[in-house]
């Protein structure tokens, strides 16, 4: 039932009706021409109805607080409540974004220090915290690449290279920044095809966008040679930080030769996904891209006061990317998380994420599943391919994903990367215990049996959730995007 269907004319949450100085009729006549004629028809419900309605809705969701979420490339780990509590302290949550610097020293101190921590973890020269999500960080990074070439008068560089296994945001971002995209093939082992790269790189190359570990769940071993190839051709190297969790404290993008990167603070640094956002996507740069960083950033004066650095300080900046300072409160969570873990804790993140992934990969092969890259180490994630099951039993990766929901596990990422048939991209993260992972293996083993014994049960899953499979075709053909029925009258 929708909240609108609970609505009854004349009902309201009385405590939320503020007292007013005067009635609407008493407004100055000059306002009359501007007034709304018909109400918007928002729901008319009591406070308890609201509380009960949304509590009941929440119960229809899977969530990390309730389920294991081995969603590859998404890093669905536990996000400490302490980090949230720190970011939500009254002084922070009531701070207006345009408050004067003198009344913002506590907040600015956190951002200034966070810039330093992220520089340290990534091996970059400078960091701007303002991008509001990974995709906006990508946008900032590629826009900086564009600004760099333009500043040098190098106008021929119109192409961005992207491995074909890349996340869809990479090409979409390159196009948003006015570039043409060229895709580079990937070898059977999941590495970039170096010969193919060498064949296309040249004076038209603005840059190469890469994830490492790659979207194939393996570490790109030829990264030094790739960096050299692109740099020699005059291009820059972009690091998509989607998989940073895998290598925290183990290897730094700056040391691998990357010129610019974004980080997904919502994956790696303590922000829960919130059912689709918010995220936060700070960018880091090497020396030569420093003048182009998006504003604002935070600096520290010689007398120890923190201050905003703006267009005045960075005249070549690519500019502002948000109305104020990005997803400011997410930055505070990331700061709090970094303080809770410290340097040693950060190194443990990469270590245990990798331990869990390799353990899970091995266990799954023991119960009969095939890895897409069996000869490689898993990083923080790995790919299972169900090509065999699809061929012999007509059971797809989507079917297995849906059946897992019945076993109380959120489905892994399906059909990504696109080039691996019937794939599941699985990322257990470091915060899950051995017992939880063993439970997942058990569920997968039982599904493997079902595929042989009663494949229809798998094909028609899920069976235990609030709805069965939804008609996506109807959703797209008969668009119903907003409730239209009249409010039920009392």
């Amino acid at each position: 039932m929708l909240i609108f269907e609970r609505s009854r004319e004349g009902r309201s949450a009385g405590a939320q009706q503020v007292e007013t100085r005067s009635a609407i009729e008493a407004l100055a006549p000059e306002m009359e021409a501007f007034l709304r004629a018909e109400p918007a028809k928002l729901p008319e419900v009591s406070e308890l109805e609201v509380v009960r309605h949304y509590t009941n809705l929440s119960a229809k969701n899977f969530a990390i607080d309730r389920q294991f979420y081995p969603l590859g490339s998404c890093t669905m780990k536990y996000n400490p409540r302490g980090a949230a509590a720190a970011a939500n302290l009254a002084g922070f949550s009531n701070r207006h974004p345009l408050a004067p610097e003198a009344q913002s020293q506590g907040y600015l101190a956190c951002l200034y220090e966070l810039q330093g921590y992220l520089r340290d973890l990534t091996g970059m020269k400078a960091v701007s915290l303002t991008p509001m999500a990974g995709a906006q960080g990508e946008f900032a990074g590629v826009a900086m690449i564009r600004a760099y070439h333009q500043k040098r008068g190098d106008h021929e560089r119109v192409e961005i290279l992207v491995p074909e296994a890349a996340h869809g945001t990479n090409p979409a971002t390159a196009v948003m920044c006015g570039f043409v995209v060229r895709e580079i093939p990937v070898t059977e082992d999941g590495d970039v095809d170096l010969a193919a790269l060498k064949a296309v790189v040249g004076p038209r190359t603005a840059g190469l966008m890469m994830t490492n570990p790659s979207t194939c769940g393996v570490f790109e071993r030829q990264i030094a040679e790739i960096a050299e190839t692109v740099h020699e051709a005059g291009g820059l190297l972009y690091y998509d930080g989607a998989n940073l969790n895998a290598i925290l404290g183990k290897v730094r993008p700056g040391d691998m030769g990357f010129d610019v990167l974004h980080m997904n603070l919502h994956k790696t640094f303590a922000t829960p996904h919130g059912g689709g956002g918010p995220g936060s996507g700070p960018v880091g740069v090497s020396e030569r891209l420093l003048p182009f960083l998006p504003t604002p950033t935070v600096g520290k004066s010689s007398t120890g006061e923190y201050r905003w650095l703006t267009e005045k300080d960075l005249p070549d900046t690519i500019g502002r990317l948000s109305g104020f300072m990005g997803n400011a409160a997410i930055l505070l969570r990331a700061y709090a998380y970094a303080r809770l873990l410290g340097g040693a804790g950060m190194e443990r993140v990469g270590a245990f994420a990798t331990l869990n992934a390799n353990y899970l990969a091995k266990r799954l092969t023991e119960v009969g599943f095939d890895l897409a890259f069996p000869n490689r180490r898993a990083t923080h994630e790995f790919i299972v391919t169900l090509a065999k099951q699809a061929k012999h039993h007509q059971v797809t990766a989507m079917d297995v994903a849906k059946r897992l929901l019945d076993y109380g596990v959120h489905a892994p990422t399906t059909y990504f990367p696109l080039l691996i048939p019937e794939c599941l991209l699985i990322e257990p993260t470091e915060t899950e215990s051995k017992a939880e992972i063993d439970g997942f293996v058990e569920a997968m083993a039982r599904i493997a049996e079902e595929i042989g014994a009663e494949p229809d049960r798998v094909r028609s899953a899920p069976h235990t959730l609030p709805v069965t499979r939804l008609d996506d075709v109807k959703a797209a053909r008969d668009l119903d995007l907003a409730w239209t029925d009249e409010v039920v009258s009392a």
Partner: protein
Amino acid sequence: MPFIPHTEAEQTAMLEVIGVPTIEALFDEIPPALRAGALTELPEGISEMALMQLMSKRARQDEVELCFLGAGAYEHHIPAAVWDLANRGEFLTAYTPYQAEASQGTLQLIYEFQTMIARLTGMEVANASVYDGATALAEAMLMAVRANKSNKSKKIVVAGNLNPRYLAVCRSIVTNQGLELESLPIDSSSGTVSTDDLSALTDAAALVISYPNFFGGLDPVDGLTDAAAAAGALVIGVVNPTAMALLRPPGCWGERGADIVVGEGQPLGIPLASGGPYLGFMCCRKAYVRQMPGRIIGRTLDQTGQPGYALTLQAREQHIRRGKATSNICTNQGLLVTAATIYLSLLGDEGLKRVALQSHTGMKELTTKASSIEGVKPRFTGPVFHEQVLSLPVSAAAVVAVMARQGVLPGLPLDEMGLSMPDCLLVNVTETKTSEDIARFTRGLAAAIEEVASAC
């Protein structure tokens, strides 16, 4: 180990299964020359208690007693139930609802949000939100260029009284795709768009109208909408959602209404929090829905014929369309949408109208009181919603510095926004400000003006 559950015995057992002696051995594919050295800037980890002590101290440093700043972010009362519910783990720690069967809570909630936003703005359809108001406008500009089939123009005409930050953000984003932004001049006495010469609309893909405008004023939206329509330009409205409870929504502007509407959703139950996370809402005519970026939820049926909700029109999005997607965005501000939906449910039409009315009349009261100070008067003529530019007899920045020391942030000096109006202060009043607060503002302003004037 913080947040890592493994015992020594478990680690040993897991390594044995994998067949390696140490965790370190799992990193043997990384070339040794690239391996990171020690982290030097990160301090040692601390306990949650120590963290809270440190952060509480910093948070207290930034507390003020009264804040009259607006300029795109507004202090409204947030009902207790809003974040009590939004912070439930089932909302907070859920992923993007790609697995529809396991995400009906989030999906239905977004469908309700889309409905509420469409109704508030008087438009046909809304998306599941984008980052914030400023980026929503940038996306709307790119969308308008795609959607306007009557010309192939890449020119966007922007009302000269748009929030300068929004304009800056749009420049950063859309100029990379070759869009040109042209400003419509404003009338210097009213602060609203001058309708004398609208020839800029010829050959434009769209006109951007801010309502209320950055100075709090109300532009002649009907005339502007009709003029744009006549010129073949789409109309993009940038609106304050609270104001929509009181003011005529963009769907009803002029003869045919606006084509695309965006705005900042922060006033709907989202704390100021230094500027984010907020949410940008986005709506349009149904005919343009395939050009709209961002997630969209549709109502459909499951295999047994009962209604359910799912992401739809995904072929527009980057994960399918890659380089040809409508945008690279792959976020909606899910948690903030949750808060805004609950906020709108709790307030209803009447509650939101009261908030808007009380904010509007409070602003009026402040303007009247402040105008009794010598040399203080509204900079522009004409009605405002809940924000007003006051011109002062001294530097606005100097006044702010004095009042801030006494715990009152009186508003935004407009020269901070790059406008050469050094004596102008943009002041906002919401329902949270009592008559006593307004009196304190006025007393403080008078004293600060005197102090600054005598120091000169």
